[in-house]
């Protein structure tokens, strides 16, 4: 980094620091959530009911339309060719045979691709959504092993796949950096996240660690991971003059529309992105090169295009989670109280994106300590851009932190549950801000009781035939987030029905179901009077389905629109209404209409207001407040995880026998869908613990296991019955009292399993995944 850049960063950091301090010190009442959401107090509404998914009849019949299932007249199919070197230039590219193959409509390469801007890389602007910022088929340069170098369009997928196999390419290779170890030897650089270094220190952690009576210090490593949503990435793309229509599998429709507009030099209003159903996302279903290539090829061929990635294509084109090498050191006194926590290490990333896996995040909020030092360093490799994957940072950071705490508990002879409870902070450990709501201790007690933690035995002492049995625990953690840009439209019709529209997403979280419940309660309607529409970039709002923030963002957007709705309805109600003379602050929604808050007998129904005013409908839009609550309060979810495993003493195989998660995530909106989200996260965590690894060839930067046969995810026989419980204590500062739950499930699971393996065998494994070779 240059001196000028460093100075710029320092100034930006200082301004942000002043702003943050002002928001921290401002009165509670100035903040969103200062006055708790009125829905938190409602007890007998739709919120909290175990409602089956609204879309379930469609899904069990295979009738929910996914991105690769839109049929457009004249549509052709795309197939991609990938580079086989990591860096250099294309020397020769022979496409003649492919062009002559039956059914081929177009072969697009850097020689004939339309001129396009690079993708605006994610987080570089409010609506930037690109996975990298490289030129897309604009020149002969190769930046990673697997980069697309040709697109074939043909009348059928079979013809396209055949023709792409006829293309011949040769390369002039440049020296590439593809080995993490080699890159590290040359030196690391500070990891920057949104321009800020991932570096923090409170007190003097090194000195305090040295002086501590009890110490643990170790290096923990985690490999690369892929999201592996079962639906491969796909888009069905068409141009209508200078309008671009993209039926996408997306967790970011507004970001994708804006970014595609930038790339093709058209306005975001000219790009229409739909995504009614997404077959799993987990951070991977954002904007990558395939949507751009599909749109470019459709433009060139003058035909609509279906570009559905092969499973190999997903591994070549869509980034995954990067590897981490973490040093975790804890210094404590003899009673186990922490004096120092040091969490530092190195990750691999690329120059074309901005995602140093922030593994220090869980250590920023989980435990109190007078001295804390956190540092993420990076090395840059010539590889596919890595990206966000479920709980970026926490999923792998908790493996190091929660393993180290277990190691400390063992060395001090303290129960690891008690050690964790002992070190709970009374305020945010780094910022000193108050917690909005923190009930982790209750979660620990309830979980330990239900799991039977007190029956734990000494390491290596329990056997069941040839199986060594052990139990372990760990903390799960994920922050409450709400990103700027939320907005929603409410349309109320004269027959008393409401439709809410917001450019949000349904990837299986149960978004439409939970928010139908919320909107019903907020408007005083029944669920069947509410339609929740989403997944369309023409709808209001910039609402990323990421960071477990979608529920909060939708909630705050609907709160804003609801305010506008009350104002509009009061205007329409006029002087002949029981509501006459009341201000917006005195009125709420109740029983299908408006009512005076402290005198519900002054009530008029929506039907009556709209009928009397001769209106067919009323439509309003509201924009969510800026998310200042996250700076004023420390807002985090937590969980207490318990795991029982068996390790086969002959084969080293590890089987998970039981698992329990006890969570404190605020109010639970729908217990049925929430339990599924927790379980789903835990199961992905079992994969992270036991089997998942994207194997990367250090010599040439190529992913070696680009298939579901070689990259193992948990299958039915790997998954035991998983028990999930929660405190259900509303967070007074969050809309509906609910903190997001999409990501916390995966956090802590790796350590819970590793700690159970230690209890079973006495062996400490610090390198994921915990495959049998490490236990032989």
């Amino acid at each position: 980094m240059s001196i000028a850049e460093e100075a710029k960063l320092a100034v930006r950091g200082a301004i942000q620091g002043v702003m943050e301090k002002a928001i921290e010190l401002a009165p509670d009442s100035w903040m969103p959530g200062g006055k708790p959401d009125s829905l938190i107090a409602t007890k007998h509404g739709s919120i909290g009911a175990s409602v089956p998914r609204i879309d379930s009849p469609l899904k069990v019949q295979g009738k929910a339309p996914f991105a690769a299932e839109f049929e457009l007249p004249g549509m052709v199919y795309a197939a991609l060719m990938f580079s086989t070197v990591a860096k250099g230039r294309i020397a020769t590219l022979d496409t003649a045979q492919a062009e002559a193959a039956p059914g081929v409509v177009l072969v697009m390469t850097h020689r004939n691709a339309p001129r396009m801007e690079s993708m605006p890389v994610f987080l570089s602007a409010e609506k930037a959504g690109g996975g990298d910022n490289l030129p897309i088929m604009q020149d002969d340069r190769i930046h990673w092993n697997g980069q697309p170098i040709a697109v074939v369009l043909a009348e059928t997928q079979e013809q396209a796949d055949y023709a792409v196999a006829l293309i011949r390419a040769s390369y002039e290779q440049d020296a590439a950096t593809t080995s993490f170890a080699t890159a590290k030897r040359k030196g690391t650089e500070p990891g920057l996240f949104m321009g800020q270094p991932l570096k923090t220190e409170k007190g003097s952690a090194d000195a305090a660690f040295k002086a501590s009576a009890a110490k643990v210090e170790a290096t923990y490593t985690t490999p690369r991971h892929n999201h592996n949503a079962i639906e491969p990435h796909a888009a069905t793309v068409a141009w209508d003059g200078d309008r671009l229509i993209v039926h996408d599998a997306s967790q970011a429709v507004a970001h994708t529309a804006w970014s595609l507009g930038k790339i093709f030099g058209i306005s975001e209003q000219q790009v229409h992105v739909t995504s009614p159903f997404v077959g799993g996302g987990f951070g991977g279903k954002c904007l990558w090169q395939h949507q751009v290539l599909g749109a470019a090829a459709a433009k060139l061929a003058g035909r609509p295009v279906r570009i559905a990635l092969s499973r190999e294509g997903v591994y070549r084109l869509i980034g995954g989670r990067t590897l981490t090498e973490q040093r975790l050191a804890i210094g404590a006194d003899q009673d186990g109280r922490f004096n120092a926590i040091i969490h530092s290490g190195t990750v691999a990333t690329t120059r074309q994106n901005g995602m140093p896996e922030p593994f220090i995040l869980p250590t920023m909020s989980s435990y109190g300590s007078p001295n804390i030092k956190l540092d993420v360093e990076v090395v840059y490799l010539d590889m596919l851009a890595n990206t966000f994957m479920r709980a970026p940072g926490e999923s792998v950071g908790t493996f190091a932190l929660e393993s180290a705490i277990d190691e400390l508990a063992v060395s001090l002879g303290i129960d690891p549950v008690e050690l964790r409870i002992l070190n709970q902070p009374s305020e945010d450990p780094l910022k000193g801000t108050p917690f909005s709501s923190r009930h982790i201790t209750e979660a620990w007690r309830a979980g330990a009781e239900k799991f039977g933690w007190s029956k734990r035995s000494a390491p290596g002492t329990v056997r069941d035939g040839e199986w060594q049995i052990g139990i372990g625990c760990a903390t799960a953690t994920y922050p409450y987030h709400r990103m700027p840009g939320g907005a929603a439209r409410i349309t109320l019709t004269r027959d008393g029905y409401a439709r809410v529209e917001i450019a949000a997403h349904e990837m299986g979280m149960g978004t439409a179901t939970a928010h139908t419940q919320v909107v019903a309660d907020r408007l005083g309607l029944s669920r069947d009077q509410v339609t929740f529409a989403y997944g369309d970039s023409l709808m209001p709002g910039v609402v990323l389905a990421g960071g477990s923030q979608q529920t909060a963002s939708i909630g705050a957007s609907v709160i804003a629109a609801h305010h506008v709705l009350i104002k509009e309805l009061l205007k329409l109600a006029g002087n002949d209404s029981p509501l006459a003379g009341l201000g917006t602050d005195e009125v709420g929604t109740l029983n299908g209409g408006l009512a005076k808050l402290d005198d519900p007998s002054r009530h008029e129904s929506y039907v009556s207001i709209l009928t009397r005013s001769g209106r067919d409908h009323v439509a309003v839009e509201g924009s969510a407040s800026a998310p200042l609550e996250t700076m004023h309060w420390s807002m985090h979810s937590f969980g207490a995880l318990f795991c029982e495993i068996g390790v086969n003493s002959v084969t080293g195989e590890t089987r998970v026998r039981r698992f329990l998660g006890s969570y404190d995530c605020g109010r639970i909106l729908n217990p049925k869908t929430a339990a599924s989200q927790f379980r789903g996260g835990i199961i992905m965590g079992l994969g992270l613990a036991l089997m998942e690894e994207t194997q990367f060839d250090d010599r040439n930067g190529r992913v070696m296991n680009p298939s579901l046969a070689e990259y193992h995810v948990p299958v039915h026989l790997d998954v035991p019955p998983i028990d999930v419980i929660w405190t259900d204590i509303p967070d007074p500062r969050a809309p509906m009292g609910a903190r997001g739950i999409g990501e916390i499930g995966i956090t802590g699971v790796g350590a819970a399993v590793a700690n159970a393996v230690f209890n079973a065998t006495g062996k400490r494994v610090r390198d994921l995944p915990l495959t049998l070779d490490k236990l032989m």
Partner: protein
Amino acid sequence: MTADRSAAAIAAIRINGVDCPVPADPRMSLLDLLRETLHLHGTKKGCNQGACGACTVLVDGERIVSCLSLAVQHAGRSVTTIEGLADQHGLHPLQQAFIEHDGFQCGYCTPGQICSAVGMAAELKRGVPSHVTQDLASDHVAFSPDEVRERMSGNLCRCGAHNGIIDAISETYAEAAE
């Protein structure tokens, strides 16, 4: 397969009770025939190499992964997809059980899970042993959660609905198996 098939039936594949012509391109998989020619999108493409089970359909009552099977192989045979499971009386009991037990989240692996489970239940009934069957010599295989989990392990789910899927299958088939 029956012996008295007519020439017309040989040239056609019966899909959910309707005869469909065999495709001209012999490279076309049964999966692509269903999805791209017949627009039966309920059968999903997750990997196109037999590793995920999302494309599972029933051929003459047995479950197969339709991505690893060429359409032309199925002339004269009867294919049931997820679209063919519900009847005029409503959803198949297993489809209903999947809803009740929340046996899915995104819904992409769901049609394959359901078709696979229908085929699996028939295998159990026929006494076909699995990797976890204790007594391989017996004609009868007892219904158990482990048998179901083992036999369903070819159907991947990434959202993590495994518990709900096994509960839905157990509720639907456990009693019938006794």
